[in-house]
């Protein structure tokens, strides 16, 4: 190395020994970005050079645990003194404050807001003012417990890439139409939504989809989709009146999932497997999913159709690496798991060829369920040549594990483990 000065050498001070006031503006912004908003505003009384430094920060996040009235005051104050574009706005409130929301949305729409994160947690939902729809620069939206009433003149958000609606009501426009009028949409997440009729999602650029709610039918045309996590919640089994039941031609699984050629990770939960299993289950899906490396699906024991639907997916994913199965007991006669499973297993023998990790999740206490888990584990051990780990989640029956250890393993490296929970699966 050259001849560097000793590290302890005193650095030359700036004017009057002030260390940071002369930092360039964007470095000060970097620092502000990492501070809670109250501390940011307080810098205005530090010194003359700091009086107005904070007023042009592009990100405003009001997320402290504070009473609503104080938070509203704070937001009002900050918005009043703030000057310049507001690119990111985040607000966490306990209860809706519709009037305040109205004036804030006005300011935001005039200041080019690009990402909006509004979270309410009360029982009553917050009404999003119509000014929201004038925020033409929006790219990222997350809303929790809101009522969104779209005006008839709404043309869509042309730059919007991510929408996340949690426990929201969308009126004046259907989910499908909202998606269609946002052409750049890449990520869509709908949690706890209620949709009447068929949910039609046509999004040519959609990459990630998360759905959990009530709907009768699903139709997704998303050729670029790589991540899909879909759960169907249903009180009255309304989806039973689904298209498949009526038409009887194509099964739901083929219609909904059959053409997602780019899918990499697929997660099916709650009653969605039930929905997928309606209609005649094909032996194989029309396409092979070469990119599909992760599947998380429930295995509804003793209901053959649902198990067949799951196996349909397995057979269509030759490169499957990670598999997670929740075992649910749905009643039905006590059939022989071994027989059913071996019948479903592909005869060509390409099932589980690349499978490395399997998580078998125990959910309910049921003797028959344990039998199914055992048989499935046996199947996996028998057919997966590169299996690395077989994890049994949330189940600590000693005899189960002893039996499990006795099964022949096709892969020498296969390890069986008992794990409390697999919250880190995602």
């Amino acid at each position, binding site marked *: 190395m050259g001849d560097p000065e000793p590290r302890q050498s005193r650095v030359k001070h700036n004017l009057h020994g002030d*260390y940071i006031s002369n930092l360039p503006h964007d470095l000060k912004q*970097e*620092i502000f970005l990492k501070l809670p908003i*109250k501390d940011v505003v307080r810098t*205005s009384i530090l010194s003359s050079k700091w009086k107005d430094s904070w007023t042009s920060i592009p990100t405003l996040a009001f997320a402290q645990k504070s009473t609503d009235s104080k938070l509203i005051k704070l937001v009002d*104050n900050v918005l009043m003194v703030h000057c310049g574009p507001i690119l990111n706005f985040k607000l966490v409130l306990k209860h809706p404050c519709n009037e305040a929301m109205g004036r804030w949305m006005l300011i935001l729409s005039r200041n080019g807001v690009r990402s909006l994160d509004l979270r309410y947690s009360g029982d009553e939902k917050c009404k999003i003012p119509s000014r929201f729809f004038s925020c033409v620069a929006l790219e990222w939206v997350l809303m929790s417990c809101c009522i969104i009433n779209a005006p008839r003149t709404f043309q869509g958000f042309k730059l919007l890439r991510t929408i996340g609606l*949690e426990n929201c009501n969308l009126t004046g426009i259907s989910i499908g139409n909202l998606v269609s009028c946002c052409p750049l949409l890449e990520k869509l997440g709908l949690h706890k939504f209620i949709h009447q009729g068929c949910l039609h999602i046509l999004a040519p650029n959609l990459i990630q989809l998360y759905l959990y709610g009530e709907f009768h039918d699903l139709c997704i045309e998303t050729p670029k989709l790589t991540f899909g996590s879909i759960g169907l*919640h249903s*009180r009255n089994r309304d989806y039973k009146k689904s298209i498949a039941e009526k038409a009887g031609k194509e099964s739901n699984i083929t219609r909904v999932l059959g053409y997602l050629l780019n899918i990499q990770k697929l997660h099916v939960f709650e009653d969605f497997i039930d929905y997928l299993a309606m209609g005649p289950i094909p032996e194989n899906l029309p396409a092979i999913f070469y990119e599909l490396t992760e599947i998380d699906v429930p295995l509804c024991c003793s209901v053959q159709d649902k198990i067949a639907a799951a196996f349909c997916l397995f057979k269509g994913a030759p490169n499957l690496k990670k598999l997670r199965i929740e075992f649910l007991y749905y009643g039905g006669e006590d059939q022989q798991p071994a027989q059913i499973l071996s019948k479903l297993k592909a005869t060509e023998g390409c099932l589980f060829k690349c499978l490395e990790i399997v998580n078998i999740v125990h959910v309910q206490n049921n003797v028959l369920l344990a039998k199914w888990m055992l048989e499935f584990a046996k199947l996996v051990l028998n057919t997966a040549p590169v299996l690395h780990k077989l994890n049994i989640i949330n189940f600590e029956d000693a005899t189960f594990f002893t039996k499990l250890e006795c099964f022949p393993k096709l892969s020498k490296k296969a390890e069986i483990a008992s794990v409390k929970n697999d919250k880190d699966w995602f």
Partner: protein
Amino acid sequence: MIRGSQQMPESETAIIKPEAMKSYIWLQCADGSIQQVEEEVAMFCPTICREILKTGSGSSKNYAISLPEKVSPATLSLILDYCRFHQVAGRSNKERKSFDERFVKVDTDQLCELISAADSLGLKPLVDLTSRAIARMIEGRTPEEIREIFHLPDDLTEEEKLEPLKNVNDDPRIRLLNRLYARKRKELKERQKQKEAKVVEERKDERSVDELLSFINGEEGSRNSKTTKGKKKNRRRKEQNKDSSTADAYHTEKKERTSMSGACTSSGNVSSSPNRNQGLREGAQDPFALKIGEDDYTDDELDPAMQEELDREVEDFARRLNSMWPDRVQEILSLSQDRRRNSSFVGHF
């Protein structure tokens, strides 16, 4: 130490790289001092890298790359240490993180030099690291403490310090201010009996400024006993819906299912607590009713465990919306505008 570049011919175009020897880059600080550093370490700095690729300089002592003024020799050493550590590909996240934590344990003035220098060399991860360290020094501290740490002059007049309030023309606020001043005056009168008049005067000024500012800015310091209006109705309903099944991630979902169906049966929107609705509607009459402190009807808490669970659920949801499943490491090291904006967003809870 191999001084390979000293054996190079005078022509600036020929760069001999014998296999056995590493190649070095020469860097010159504003004060004239020159340092020599391994090529891959220097290339970690985008500005230096660009300079090398564009002009081909830096390969010899005579053609050293001139660094921006902000980079002093001492700071350069530190930065090169940083680069040398991080440019090695095989390190784990944990290793990098603990190196970073140790790295920012320097004097305040050195830290401020570092952020400046890192910025002028285009080292975004280091700017991020140092700005976070500086933010930690500011967070939660009083203005006096911050001025002390960073040697800031206290050159604002009392009036200027109250300025944010001047922008506000609302009557309720001025009323509040007067109320607060009156309260303060009363308090201080009592204290004057015990302490010196001069000391009290000074303290009054300082504290009044801070307290006013913090009150207006929404400090939770005021311990309101008006908080627990106890809307027991809602709490009970929420608790009923809580399943007593095991705390497995998917059981949580089942819990959510029952509570969601609960909400659905009441057609999703209207809550079943008339008291609370009334309270809200009252406030809704006056559009600018910034009722400060008095009607803290908004203060009642949901059962905190339930609240936390709901919060966590929404956080999970938000995280899902942000996360790109592949490489987490890639996410951390690459600072695309999108990710930085969104992650500082969600993580700002």
